[in-house]
């Protein structure tokens, strides 16, 4: 039975009954029903136009000249030959900019360290040095070869351990030993915790980088007009961030910049910082007063955007014979690359989620992020947690095996539960971990005995539903929504959220339809346009379902309250009767047959308001919700893997995803997000790696950078675990990003159970398996020999 079918039946079965805040039962008519993405038709008919497709009258084409050196001082740039080339309109360099060091950490200026067009020096291969605007892309590209840059090449450093050495080159002036940021988390008494432990184990791990590899490469079209207005079509995850950051680097007002991100070809954590495309097109158009378009090639997208943060993990864990967790200490040194980006947050979150999803009486984490002359590393789907789980979930599996314990029961014994408080960090209001463990156990049991060289590995994980920190220092609420009711009953919803494919527009339409009591097709959603939509921090850290969802729900409740006032008047009701609206029918809750059509009420209300349209407004900013996030999702990923012992080839045979996302809202979107997360996370486990030589990425193309394709994808049945998250809209929380966390570790554990080898480096590549098996055989032989000796 296909996942969709299963879930459709589940949906029907549920009968849409649920309790909100323990109050009267609320009947739900739209939530978690089978709804198409509201932008689906545009996408399957090829009508959806992305920044990549945008064309404006008189548009010029831009190209970016990139540094061939990992570390060099820019002594001089001579563009005269390029400017002489017929068709070239302008060349800009760092000198044409305000030279502002920008970053998303506006509250912590020292972490704003990146000039998109550097003035003094370049810090990684591929960093922009100059940008050209010309009549055609071909001329622009030809012009790049004519720009003469005089570099003073400086020694580079590429590995964090090297970069911290005394004699290492300084990448950012004034940053001692290239240490960018450190993060520390601690609770409980770690030392005495370890004293109580019967079994203490230490391991060193390494997790590599990963490319976001959005199908739409970075693309921007900027247009500056004499009115002093700058319009930017840009492929990003947060239109508001782009607007605010651009205002900062251009020295103009946010309100004079309009950022449009209607259709976005994927983000995955890589598209909410400024990139060369948006910055250079803006600088060029403000010089030329003509629209300028820059689209990154795939190679540029690989070498000059950002990546998942490579991390060196040292983990020390102490547990009792019976599997009770006592203490854990973890230390991370991450390769930050040339700039901070979102890396500081990734460094904190990896430490936080390394404790997940378990109760640790004592826990200590020290994280160190180190600058190197490589591609900057930043947030990527999972935000540091996939690395954390790779180390944590494998080590726990090994320890359980060493102690002869059932690893699933050990996880259950120490797992988070609703009502648990992660000391000083977070409060867990809903938690489906226990059921996820049970579902996984059942699935493994049902699988029965597996053929040789096959095994099932699994891993638990948890994730956040949006971040709480306001390091961006915005005066706006985190999420806002405005809903407008037309006289004919149609509804227009304006949200600042960004639809990047995850289906947020549809999710918000569903929440709006549910709350107002209308149908999804009554709702028109406008998002990702800073001129028309209220500010919202955007699509990252799994924040929109919960945060924008709450804002949308509140906006609709506001509008509903206003409109129902007219229903009370019209129907002359005793005020003790409750009115509600479902399926476009305004009615008395106790007497559903008594009521009036929604459209009729909308007309009456509009007239009654002296012709004003009913407008509802909603805002959400988390308050008093701990250090990290208002809510946490929980999940188990099980993967059946087959390994060719001779070649080390890895095959994914089957899988089970058990995921607690609170109340599912957008059913199709949920399944899509979970399956998608699996493919990206499994790729991280055994395919996707980024080898560097002297700071140069060796596989910046889709021939040499491997990722999962249809033929590598196993079945992905999903066990939906519905809990109720009090802080989320209708009890919803994160779904889709979190599942990137456990999968790589699950593959690692499968390899461990199949072959008895412990893989400490991620991704696991075939030759590593062959090597590990060889070492194991030698060890076993030696052991046998020793026995014989006795």
């Amino acid at each position, binding site marked *: 039975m*296909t*996942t*969709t079918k299963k879930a459709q039946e589940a949906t029907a079965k549920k009968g849409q009954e649920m309790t909100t805040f323990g109050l009267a039962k609320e009947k739900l008519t739209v939530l978690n029903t*089978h709804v*198409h*993405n509201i*932008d*689906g*038709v*545009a*996408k*399957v*008919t*090829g*009508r*959806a*136009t*992305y920044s*990549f*497709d945008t064309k404006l009258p008189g548009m010029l084409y831009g190209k970016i000249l990139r540094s061939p050196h990992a570390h060099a001082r820019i002594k001089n740039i001579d563009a005269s030959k390029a400017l002489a080339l017929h068709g070239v309109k302008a060349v800009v360099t760092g000198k044409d900019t305000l030279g502002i060091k920008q970053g998303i950490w506006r509250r912590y200026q020292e972490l704003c360290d990146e000039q998109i067009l550097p003035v003094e020096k370049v810090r990684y291969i591929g960093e922009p040095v100059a940008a050209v605007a010309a009549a055609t892309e071909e001329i622009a590209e030809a012009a790049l070869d004519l720009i003469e840059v005089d570099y003073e090449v400086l020694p580079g450093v590429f590995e964090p351990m090297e970069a911290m050495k005394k004699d290492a080159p300084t990448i950012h002036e004034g940053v001692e030993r290239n240490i960018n940021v450190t993060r520390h988390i601690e609770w409980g008494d770690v030392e005495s915790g370890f004293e109580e432990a019967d079994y203490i184990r230490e391991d060193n791990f390494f997790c590599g980088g990963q490319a976001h*590899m*959005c*199908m*739409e*490469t970075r693309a921007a079209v900027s247009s500056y007009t004499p009115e002093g207005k700058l319009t930017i079509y840009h492929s990003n995850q947060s239109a508001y961030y782009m607007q605010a950051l651009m205002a900062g680097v251009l020295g103009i007002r946010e309100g004079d910049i309009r950022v449009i991100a209607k*259709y*976005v*070809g*994927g983000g*995955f954590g890589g598209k909410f910082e400024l990139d060369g495309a948006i910055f250079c097109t803006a600088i060029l158009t403000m010089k030329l007063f003509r629209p300028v378009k820059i689209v990154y*090639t*795939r*190679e540029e997208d690989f070498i000059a955007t950002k990546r998942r943060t490579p991390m060196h993990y040292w983990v020390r864990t102490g547990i009792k014979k019976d599997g009770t967790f006592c203490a854990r200490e973890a230390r991370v040194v991450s390769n930050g690359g040339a700039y901070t980006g979102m890396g500081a947050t990734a460094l904190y979150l990896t430490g936080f989620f390394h404790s997940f999803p378990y109760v640790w009486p004592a826990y200590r984490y020290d994280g160190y992020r180190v600058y190197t002359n490589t591609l900057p590393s930043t947030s990527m789907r999972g935000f540091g947690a996939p690395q954390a789980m790779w180390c944590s979930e494998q080590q726990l599996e090994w320890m359980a095996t060493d102690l002869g314990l059932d690893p699933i029961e050990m996880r259950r014994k120490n797992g988070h539960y609703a009502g648990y408080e992660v000391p000083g960090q977070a409060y867990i209001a809903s938690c489906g971990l226990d059921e996820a463990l049970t579902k996984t156990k059942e699935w493994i049991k049902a699988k029965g005995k597996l053929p040789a060289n096959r095994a099932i590995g699994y891993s638990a994980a948890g994730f956040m539903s949006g971040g709480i920190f306001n390091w961006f220092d915005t005066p706006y609420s985190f999420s806002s929504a405005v809903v407008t009711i037309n006289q004919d009953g149609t509804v227009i919803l304006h949200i600042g959220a960004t639809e*990047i*494919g*995850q*289906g947020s527009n549809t999710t918000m339409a569903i929440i709006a339809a549910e709350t107002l009591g209308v149908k999804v097709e009554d709702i028109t959603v406008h998002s990702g346009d800073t001129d028309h939509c209220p500010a919202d921090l955007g699509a990252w850290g799994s924040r929109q379902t919960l945060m924008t969802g709450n804002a949308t729900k509140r906006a609709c409740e506001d509008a509903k309250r206003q409109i129902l006032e007219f229903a009370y008047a019209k129907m002359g009701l005793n005020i003790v009767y409750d009115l509600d609206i479902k399926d476009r029918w305004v009615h008395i809750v106790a007497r559903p047959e008594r009521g009036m059509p929604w459209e009729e009420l909308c007309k009456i209300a509009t007239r009654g308001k002296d012709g004003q349209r009913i407008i509802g407004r909603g805002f959400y900013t988390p308050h008093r919700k701990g250090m990290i996030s208002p809510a946490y999702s929980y999940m188990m990923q099980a993967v059946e893997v087959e390994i060719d012992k001779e070649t080390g080839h890895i095959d994914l045979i089957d899988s089970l995803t058990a995921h607690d996302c609170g109340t599912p809202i957008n059913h*199709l*979107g949920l*399944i*899509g*997000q979970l*399956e*998608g*997360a*699996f*493919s*990206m996370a499994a790729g991280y486990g055994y395919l996707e790696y980024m080898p560097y030589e002297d700071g140069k990425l060796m596989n910046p*193309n*889709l*021939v040499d950078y491997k*990722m*999962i*394709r*249809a*033929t590598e*994808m196993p*079945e*992905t049945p999903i066990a939906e675990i519905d809990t109720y998250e009090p802080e989320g809209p209708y009890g919803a929380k994160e779904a889709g990003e979190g599942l990137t966390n456990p999968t790589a570790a699950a593959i690692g554990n499968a390899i461990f159970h199949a072959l008895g080898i412990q893989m400490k480096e991620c991704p696991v590549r075939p030759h590593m398996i062959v090597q590990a098996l060889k070492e194991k055989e030698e060890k076993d032989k030696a052991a046998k020999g020793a026995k014989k000796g006795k």
Partner: protein
Amino acid sequence: MEKRLITLIVNEQAYEIYVNPKTLLVEAIRDHVGLTGTKRGCETVSCGACTVLVNDMAVKSCSVLAVQCDGMKITTSEGLEVNGKLAPIQKAFLDNGSYQCGFCTSGMLMATSGLLKENKKPTKDQIKESIEGNICRCTGYNSIVRAVEAVARGEYKEGSV
């Protein structure tokens, strides 16, 4: 460079266009004909986002010169729907959520359409093989496979909405 006049019959309409011989088919479709549903995701014929049908055969339009297709029949994702009636494969993509960001979707639609043209009842493996030249970073492919299976099962009538 001397341009050549060629005729591309795109979605059953003939377009006479002057192109430099080095113009790729995808460039001709996007820039000369002006249909932007067909995307580009790489320079190495790896991602399949540019897949179109040439004489009813799935081909990556970034790996073919436009001049090589002079007089040939080209079908793009815009050509699947007829007078607002979605093709079965499009409807199946909708019902199965076989797209997310949508950037690879045109290529996926055309690759699977190509399969269904030569094989009305493909097996799951044949479906997977038909799109293994196409990268989707969002869906994990299985929803796309389910959509094609649904069409193969005859769940959708031609021209259904």
